[in-house]
């Protein structure tokens, strides 16, 4: 195949597979945020990419700060927390000012959040300049493992992946084990009835939206390990993450995880054998074909309604 030996192809799969981990982490976190906002609340947030960029800029700024005060080796976990907090706060505000007035009007929400994304991009441009900036990665994140002489596994990918797994587990615990998760799920299943058993559904909406934005902010922190951050970098990822959510089945968190993994790995491995855009096209075509066979996504929920 393509003039490579079987062993070489094996190595390529492992290496591209691991380098796909960072992309997987970014996509998964973004898609988790989207899955919560779109899958659970039915809001299409076109400014989702910009929330990711909030997290990315937060990380970049914190890294500059870390360089200055000499704690580059430790700042990254803090950056993820700051990214989460900042995106959460902005999300909370946006829900309060904008989204909550538009819940029953999906088309207006689409337009309003698209407008919001433009506004946010302009704010980024004014605040940080049009040029792309990069985070100073700690030394220990730059190297790679070499389990065999032919295989390189980047440490940053594994690290970011680990943190992503933690956050994903946290989201699961939140949704399925906490009182807040119970409120969110009740509101999603029957808003009127959730109110009539005593749940303050408006507050639930605000927290849910903010949480989705916060997780996306963390995606931004992860993003700084694979790319440089500019005012419009977020828009490159919005399509991919919508794809992940739709492909996985909008209401299923498990589906979101598997489909993020599938899409990130397919893109990353295919990119080795063809150009990056051909890789994307192939992935997209495959998704379209699968969605034609399973329109509800990979993991449709199995409860009778």
């Amino acid at each position, binding site marked *: 195949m393509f003039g490579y030996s079987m062993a070489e192809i094996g190595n390529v799969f492992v290496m591209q597979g691991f380098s796909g981990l960072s992309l997987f982490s970014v996509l998964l976190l973004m898609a988790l945020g989207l899955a919560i906002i779109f899958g659970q609340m039915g809001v299409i947030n076109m400014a989702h990419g910009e929330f990711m960029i909030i997290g990315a800029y937060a990380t970049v700024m914190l890294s500059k700060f870390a360089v200055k005060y000499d704690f580059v080796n430790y700042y990254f976990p803090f950056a993820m927390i700051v990214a989460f907090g900042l995106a959460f706060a902005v999300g909370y505000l946006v829900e309060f000012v904008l989204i909550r007035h538009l819940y029953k009007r999906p088309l207006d929400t689409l337009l309003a959040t698209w407008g919001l994304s433009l506004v946010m991009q302009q704010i980024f441009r004014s605040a940080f300049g049009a040029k792309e900036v990069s985070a100073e990665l700690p030394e220990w994140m730059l190297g790679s493992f070499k389990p065999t002489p032919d295989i390189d596994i980047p440490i940053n990918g594994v690290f970011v992946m680990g943190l992503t797994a933690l956050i994903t587990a946290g989201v699961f615990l939140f949704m399925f084990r906490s009182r807040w998760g119970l409120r969110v799920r009740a509101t999603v*299943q029957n808003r009127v009835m959730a*109110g*009539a*058993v005593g*749940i303050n559904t408006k507050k639930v909406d605000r927290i849910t939206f903010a949480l989705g934005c916060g997780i996306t902010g963390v995606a931004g922190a992860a993003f700084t390990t694979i790319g440089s951050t500019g005012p419009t970098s977020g828009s490159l990822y919005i399509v991919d993450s919508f794809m992940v959510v739709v492909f996985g089945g909008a209401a299923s968190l498990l589906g979101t995880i598997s489909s993020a993994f599938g899409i990130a790995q397919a893109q990353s491995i295919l990119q080795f054998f063809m150009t990056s855009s051909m890789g994307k096209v192939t992935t997209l075509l495959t998704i379209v074909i699968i969605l034609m066979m399973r329109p509800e996504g990979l993991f449709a929920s199995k409860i009778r309604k």
Partner: protein
Amino acid sequence: MLEIENMQVSYGQSKVIQGVSFKAEKNETLAIMGRNGMGKTTLFKALMGILPSKADKAMIDSESIQGDESHQRVAKGIAYVPQGRMIFPAMTVEENIETGLEKSGDRVIPDDIYALFPVLFDMKKRKGGNLSGGQQQQLAIARALVTNPKVLLLDEPTEGIQPSIIKDIAKVLNEIRKMREITIIVSEQVLSFTMEIADRIIVIERGNFIHEDKRDDVDAAKIKKYLSV
């Protein structure tokens, strides 16, 4: 105690509840009876704050509930078992009941709930959507009860349920009233069920209360006539 004066409810231009007044005491069960489409559900939804309404007075004990949202009314002591049950289908039985714990702040479901509905204890981990209609009805009542209501509203609790389970539900409602001394307001079309639980019966027709009787003075033939088309 629930006290309503001159309540009116409209869908757009069409007024469906035409200014009704009533008072239901503590430890009293009041039945509101009427044919299909006479406004029972509309009245209950308005009481619950799901539909907007106008009234001169709407009070629970000495607290006004005018203009409150549903969750605020629950906090003041109304609980609602809607027509068609409306349990959360994708949640387990246990989780369904837990949604009602918002008001009490309890973390676990009180034992007396499962004592009233042993069937729910056995099915704790099942998805609500996979229960039978009768079991879902019990679940909806349990979910309302854990809010420790002063006033419990039940909209046609016997609809689509077989006679033996209807008897069980009547027994449970009587037990609840004896145990908790709350106000129960139930809408119904089945007179035999009503006679087993209600202290007082009001007949509603086209959004007006047209007849009222204490249970002991009920003229069954007359009420039956109101209820038949």
